[in-house]
């Protein structure tokens, strides 16, 4: 979950806005009188969509989470298997 958490920490999520995400810290977001931001207006006109797929290398957040969870589970299971293998069951029977 580390990677997914890192992604989440950046504020990126599917359907969000890359331009807003990449804005330098402290920089304000211009808001028009109608309440829309320039980012919203720009994203609707750019040829390359600023949607999730590009930001996540083609993977959705769910995909990232699924991969990370599976890798984490595998690591945990293998580590536990090593602990199992080191167990001395005969030793358990020695008072």
């Amino acid at each position: 979950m580390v990677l997914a958490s890192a992604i989440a920490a950046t504020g990126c999520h599917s359907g969000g806005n890359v331009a807003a995400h990449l804005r330098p810290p402290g920089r304000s977001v211009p808001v028009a009188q109608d309440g829309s931001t320039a980012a919203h207006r720009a994203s609707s006109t750019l040829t390359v969509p600023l949607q999730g797929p590009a930001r996540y290398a083609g993977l959705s957040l769910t995909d990232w989470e699924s991969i990370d969870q599976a890798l984490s589970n595998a690591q945990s299971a293998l580590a536990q298997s090593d602990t199992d293998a080191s167990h001395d069951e005969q030793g358990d029977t020695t008072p």
Partner: protein
Amino acid sequence: MTTLRRVAVSATAALTVLVPAGASYAATNSSSGTPPTSGQNPPAQNDARWQEDHQKLLSDLQARVQTLAKLTTSVNNDETLSPQDKSALSGLVANETNGINQLLATVQAATPQNTTIAQLGADAKEMVDNYRVYLVMSRQVHLTEAADAQTTAETKIESNESKIQAAINRAGNPPDAVSAYNDLVHQVANATQGTGNAHIPAVLAVTPKGYPGDEGPLTSARSALGQARTDLTAARGDLVTIRNVVAQHDSTNHPSPGQTTSGTSSSAA
């Protein structure tokens, strides 16, 4: 073990059983250092030793009950286990839990009057040799879980390779992303092969009584899965590289609205 069966156990037979297992459960009379001459404990002489052995055996059995409960929970909650593996493991763990619980009940009912120290030793040997909770059952569960989890990750990445490639294409095929993608495909292919080399049916066929003679599948599966996970870790690193390069491309080519010279924003305002 029933009381009737306990009576039938001779001290000589118990000694024969206990010696190979090491210094376990009173192979000799603790006070004299000589073997017991019958299946009955001399009154009072071995009482402290009996209590010590009994308590140790109870503790060992209860630890196994707890481990089996954890394995049951792990199998039930594992979302990446295949249905057939989950079914097989559930059956194995349930049978083992039933057997250990029966043995625990027998030992809990034991008293110095109906059970000899040698008989406690025989129960201890049964606990180990007939169940192998740690060296067989636990490893079967954890190796199978690892194999299925890795298969899930491999399948997930493979099924998304076309989308990843498309994202790189949209970004203009940055060399670093293309290189990372090529390595990603290579690593996932290796991982898939490695995970496949972990022969889970053979792992599940290992039996407590056959151990350690039939340990081979457990050892080879651990080795194959470990290598495959290393490949998957590298593949995950490639994914991060691709993501960062593509994101950097977006940042360069599609800067934030205040930085863009495009008239589309203003025209839309």
